[in-house]
C-alpha cells in the first residue's frame, strides 16, 4: 500500500552552502550585495512555486530484486545489490517539487533573467535532495511506529543512475510504484518529469549495512562520491 504525502516547506528549506556550492561559490565566501539580493529573490520565487509531494511503497526483498534487475543493464556487483540484501526493510519512493517550479526556472531563462533562473535551479536541486531526505525520515518513522527497534537503525536512499543501478531501472521502479499519483511521469530516456524529482529505494537496517568499500567498478566511474557524505551523516561522532 502506498503512502502519498505532501512535504512541508520548512522541512526542506535548501541549505545555503549547498546551493552556493552548486553555483560554484565556495562555502564561507562573503557575497556582494547584488548576489545577496539575487539569492533573496530566488528564495521568494522558490517559496511561491514549490509544491512538494512524495510517495512511498514498502516492498519485499524478492520483489525489489525484480525491480532492481530493470532492463538487465546493472553491473554484476553493485553497492545497491550489496546493501539491499543486507537491509531489514525496503521501500520504493519518489518525491517531486512539482511542475510550477520547473516552469518558473524555464521562464527565467526565456525572459533573460539568467542569474535568477540559475540560482533558482540550484536551490531546487538542493530542495529536491532535502525532500528525498524527508522520505527517508518518514519511512524510518513508519517502521519505528511498527516497533522497529534495531540499534543504530538507519534509512538511506539509493537511486537509479547511481551506485551501479542503471538508469533504465526507472522503468520497473515506476511500474511498481506508480508515482503518477504525485504527478510524476517517465519519458523514453528514463527521465522524470517534473525535472526536480528524486526516485529510488529506501533501505533500512543497522547503519553498518550502508557501509561499502568504494571499490566497485561503478565507484571508479563515479564523479559524485556523495555516498561518503551520506555515510558521514550516519556515523557522525562515531568511529567508522
Amino acid at each position: 500500500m502506498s503512502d502519498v504525502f505532501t512535504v512541508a516547506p520548512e522541512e526542506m528549506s535548501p541549505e545555503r552552502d549547498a546551493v552556493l556550492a552548486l553555483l560554484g561559490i565556495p562555502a564561507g565566501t562573503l557575497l556582494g550585495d547584488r548576489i545577496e539580493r539575487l539569492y533573496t529573490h530566488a528564495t521568494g520565487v522558490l517559496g511561491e512555486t514549490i509544491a512538494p509531494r512524495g510517495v512511498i511503497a514498502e516492498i519485499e526483498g524478492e520483489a525489489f530484486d525484480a525491480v532492481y534487475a530493470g532492463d538487465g543493464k546493472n553491473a554484476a556487483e553493485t553497492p545497491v545489490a550489496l546493501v539491499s540484501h543486507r537491509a531489514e526493510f525496503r521501500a520504493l519512493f519518489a518525491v517531486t517539487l512539482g511542475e510550477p517550479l520547473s516552469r518558473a526556472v524555464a521562464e527565467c531563462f526565456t525572459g533573460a533573467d539568467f542569474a535568477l533562473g540559475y540560482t533558482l535551479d540550484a536551490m531546487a536541486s538542493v530542495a529536491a535532495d532535502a525532500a528525498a531526505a524527508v522520505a527517508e525520515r518518514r519511512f524510518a518513522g513508519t517502521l519505528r511506529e511498527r516497533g522497529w527497534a534495531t540499534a543504530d537503525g538507519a534509512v538511506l536512499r539509493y537511486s537509479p543512475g547511481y551506485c551501479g543501478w542503471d538508469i533504465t531501472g526507472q522503468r520497473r521502479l515506476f511500474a511498481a510504484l506508480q508515482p503518477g499519483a504525485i504527478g510524476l511521469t517517465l519519458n523514453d530516456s528514463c527521465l522524470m518529469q517534473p525535472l526536480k524529482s528524486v526516485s529510488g529505494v529506501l533501505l533500512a537496517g543497522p547503519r553498518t549495512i550502508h557501509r561499502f568499500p568504494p571499490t566497485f567498478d561503478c565507484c571508479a566511474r563515479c564523479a559524485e562520491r556523495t555516498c561518503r557524505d551520506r555515510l558521514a551523516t550516519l556515523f557522525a561522532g562515531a568511529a567508522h
Partner: protein
Amino acid sequence: MPPLTDLADAVIRGDHPQAGALTREAIRLAIEPKTILDDGLIAGMTVVGDRFRVHEIFLPDVLLAAKAMYAGMDELRPLLIRDGVPSLGKVVIGSVKGDLHDIGKNLVGIMLKGAGFDVIDLGHDVAPEAMVRTAKEQGAAVIGMSALLTTTMPVMGEVVSRLKAEGMGGTVRTVVGGAPVSEAFAREIGADAYGFDAGNAVDVVKTLVGRR
C-alpha cells in the same frame, strides 16, 4: 571613447537598464554599431569572462552581466542586421533527444552570445535530424550538444554520424558536453571537441572556428 567605456562598465556591473540606455546613447551619437558591439558590449563581457576564469567573480555575476549585454543587444540588433555585420559564426545548440535538462546548454548559449557568436538554440529534446537540418539551412559552423543522462549520450553520436553521412563532417564542427560526457566519449563518437563547462565551451568553439 568614454560612452563605450561606460557601456562596458555597465555590462561588467550587470547594470542592465544602464547598459540599454548607454547603447541607445551611443547609437544617438552615431557611433558605428559594430564599434558599439566590439568596444562596448563584447569588451565588457570579455572582462567578465576573464575575471570568471581566474575566480574573481562567480557564474551568477557572469549571468547578470549577460543580461546587461542582452539589454544592449536588443537596441543594437536591428542596426547590426541592417549593416550586415557578421558575427563570429553561427552555432546551433541543443540538449539531445530524450533529454529535458537545459540549464547547462542555456549557460553555453548565453556565454557564446556574450562572446559574439550567433546562437540558434533549438531547446531540449532535439532530434538529430533537426540539429543537422538547422545547421545546413542556417550555414552554421558548429553544432553544440548537451546531455545529462547516460541514456541520451548516444544521440550525440547519431548527430556526428548523420553529419558525416550528409557530407557535412568537414564543414560543420561538433562539440559535446554535459555531466556524464567526457573527452574520451567525444573521441569515441568522432566529435570534434569536448567542452567541460560553459566557459570552456566558448574557448573550444572559438578554436573550432579559428578565432583563437
